[in-house]
């Protein structure tokens, strides 16, 4: 069965793009829970997802990491389902569950065989209505999350560099904090914190349900109404205030860690997703680092052979995130040389812009990425959920290619000048030490 139509056509200039549409249906329950549906019968499987409008962006100092810790607690039982039953039922029904937390969103999803849908709806409604939050499951997940932090950050040099990069770049905005939380705060989160958090952020009016796959969209509505509509709505969470002051000069920090190769992470304050500049910066990141022909790769990895790898990316966040560049050096090469090359390339773009070919190439890349997200049910659910929460409306995801085609070479020059300049820059330099010379304590 063909799932969605992508009519390919040629636009005379500036580039080739798709007209894209995906058949979605939606409704809203009276308690504010929004439901988006995409029927697709390609494989006998359903993806049920819930996107909550909450992430580490909504946290305060002292209990950082609570969004992610809480994500773990959602799997530990509710009024009618004992702990571990949720996953047992899913796996026995040919499925699995997973979730992720980021700065702006917390996203839960499960995929399962179609005949399990009613059971999943019942379990999901039960945990939204009456999640079990007690000392034993808080302590259990606290221990697991601390191991997660150890494996993903404390014993991972690159993640540690990025943790430092955000902590140094943002002084007032919660993007300062790592999503996983500071180790000291993980120890500090209380049962009451967790209960307050659930009530405030996991209310139906703070969530969007997305269902994709082999199910009947007509019969879903009455089922959802029956199970979810009596879950009480709560006062809307307080808006996050972006008090981040203008950065007025470079911030430069050293990280001493056991490592083999020097590396550098550079972050510039960028644009939020609501700004057209966000798309221009995305195009810049593709021109800088997508593929071996990109500017940074070609110069630093291929021609000059001073780096083993290099990458650039623009955060897709509600508030202005970072445009970051990461470079790992070849043995014996100096970070300063990579920095010099990177800044020279940025200056050149700011002054002379990019070629038409580079712009077209970036747009073609964006298209392939776009198509790629429609390959699987979970890919579609993930995309719609992210756009609903972070961009404010899942439908904007269908218009995103139009945003990219609007980007001109003048825009590119302007955003590089405006955002990617030395005044707005934070630099983390990894100074490798032999294992054993440095020791980090994280308990």
């Amino acid at each position, binding site marked *: 069965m063909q799932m969605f139509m992508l009519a390919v056509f040629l636009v005379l200039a500036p580039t080739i793009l798709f007209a894209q549409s995906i058949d979605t249906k939606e409704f809203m329950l009276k308690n504010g829970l929004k439901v988006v549906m995409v029927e697709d019968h390609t494989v006998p499987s359903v993806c049920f997802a819930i996107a909550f409008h909450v992430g580490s962006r909504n946290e305060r100092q002292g209990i950082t990491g609570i969004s992610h810790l809480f994500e773990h607690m959602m799997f530990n039982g509710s009024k009618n389902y004992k702990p571990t039953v949720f996953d*047992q039922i899913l796996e026995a029904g040919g499925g699995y569950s997973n979730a992720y937390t980021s700065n702006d969103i917390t996203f839960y999803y499960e995929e399962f065989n179609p005949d399990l849908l009613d059971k999943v709806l019942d379990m999901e409604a039960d945990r939204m209505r009456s999640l079990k939050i007690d000392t034993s499951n808080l302590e259990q997940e606290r221990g697991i999350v601390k191991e997660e932090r150890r494996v993903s950050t404390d014993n991972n040099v690159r993640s540690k560099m990025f943790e430092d990069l955000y902590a140094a770049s943002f002084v007032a905005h919660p993007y300062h904090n790592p999503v996983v939380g500071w180790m000291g705060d993980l120890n500090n989160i209380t049962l009451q914190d967790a209960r307050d958090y659930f009530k405030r952020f996991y209310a139906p009016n703070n969530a969007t349900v997305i269902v994709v796959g082999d199910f009947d969209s007509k019969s879903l509505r009455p089922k959802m109404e029956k199970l979810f509509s009596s879950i009480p709505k709560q006062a809307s969470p307080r808006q996050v205030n972006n008090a981040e002051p203008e950065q007025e000069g470079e911030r430069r920090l050293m990280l001493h860690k056991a490592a083999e190769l020097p590396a550098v992470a550079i972050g510039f304050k960028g644009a939020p997703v609501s700004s057209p500049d966000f798309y221009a910066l995305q195009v810049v990141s593709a021109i800088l680092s997508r593929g071996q022909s990109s500017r940074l790769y*070609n110069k630093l990895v291929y021609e000059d052979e001073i780096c083993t790898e290099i990458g650039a990316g623009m955060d897709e966040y509600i508030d202005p995130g970072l445009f970051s560049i990461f470079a790992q050096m070849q043995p014996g090469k100096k970070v300063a040389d990579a920095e010099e090359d990177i800044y020279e390339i940025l200056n050149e773009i700011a002054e002379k812009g990019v070629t038409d070919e580079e712009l077209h190439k970036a747009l073609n890349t964006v*298209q392939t990425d776009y198509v790629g997200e429609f*390959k699987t049910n979970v890919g579609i659910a993930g995309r719609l959920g992210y756009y609903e929460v972070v961009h404010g409306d899942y439908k904007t995801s269908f218009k995103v290619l139009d945003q990219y085609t609007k980007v001109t070479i003048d825009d590119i020059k302007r955003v590089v000048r405006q955002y990617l300049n030395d005044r707005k820059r934070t630099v983390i330099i990894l100074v490798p030490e032999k294992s054993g010379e440095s020791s980090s304590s994280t308990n």
Partner: protein
Amino acid sequence: MRRTFVISLILLAAAAFGQQIHVPPTTRQTLDNGLTVILMEYRKVPIVYFRLVARGGSAQDPAGVEGVAGLTTALMREGTTTRSSTEISNTIDFIGGSLSVDAGLEYCAANSEVLAKDVDTGLDLFSDVILRPSFPDEEIERQRKQSLAGLDAVKENPRSIASITFSKNVYGGHPYGHQSFGTRSSLEMLTKRDLLEFYRKVFVPDNSILVVVGDFKVAEMHNKIRTAFGSWAAAGKVDLTLPPPAMLRGRKVVLVDKADATQTQIRVGNTGVDIKHPDYIAITVANTIFGGGFTSRLNDELRVKRSLTYGAGSGFAANLAGGSYSISTFTKNETIKETMDVILEELKKFREKGATREEREKAQNYMAGNFARSLQTPEALASRMTDIELYGFPKDYLETYIKKIKAVSLSDVQRAARTYFLLDDLLMVFVAPAQHIMPVAEPYGPVSVVDLKDAVQ
């Protein structure tokens, strides 16, 4: 992120539920030069996916010169007789596509994905890197330098160190223990002649399988393929025969000293079975129960019940002549003993008491669901189809896989548990501060301590 699993890809070639799997029809042809060509029209997204697999990989690297397959494939897209490395990159990047050539243990694979509208450009480039790589000297030197730096970079990653150390030690001197990315000494001495020799032996049509999946018309694609690959000269099949790797007897501990680690990476296991072993399906079901899904025994005992880790799992990696079985997890240095005690106790329990009927059914359903979902993407379909050809699985493998999973009985599971989940013969790898861990490690068996700088040579 809630969970990570360290499960071998081959294990994930798991199966489905009660419902029938409908795989889009394929056509299979052999060109005059012996190239097997399989085409599948699949129009879910406007993409065409090309995958060519050539038999022979890093297990065929001559002793002492590991990395030949790896370096050869890395260079194939870095210059052909008609295009420079830069031209290749520009062309594929411009159409927003992907193009890669990689070496596995027993085969090399070229993969390319392009939008359907760019299919001709994509095929032109894809066939060029397969048929006419020129291995320019300056590109060899550049890649050599990159690969050498890669050996350094990998030492920063405790998980990679643990896996590499496990693989090297579990296979002993067997070619399955080869480091596909080479060693410092082999990378320094490899020459263009070595690469050409490997390329000419392996990348020949009668030793290769080409699969194309996606948005195209079969008849048209056949013509395009014939035009692109028809003149490729046959040169015979590569002999992949190897003796099976020897099982490790007794217990042995390898401790890689990473003094700054606050968490210990753990790998426990032994050799396993070959991919066509009659018990392989039963083993995958048993393994799903023991260390496959989130509700597996290992994850339940180590993570859910005791908060000792963020994730624990096990897997059987299987190749033509044999494979390995490994348990993977990690825990803070203070709780390594507790973690190891649980692992060994669970192994013992599984061997002695086996699984319950409910566990078996849950595992079968879980595998069936995963299998059905895995057939959604062109790349997954292409990969399954090359596996079928490469390993000589039956042609209805995809359609009957779920049935085979479902046919595994409880006594099959019990037998697999007793036979293949070894307890007294085990290799244990720890990546941890040696000083700290030594007293904990010693009771498990003779310990060899490896300095971090020697862990990846």
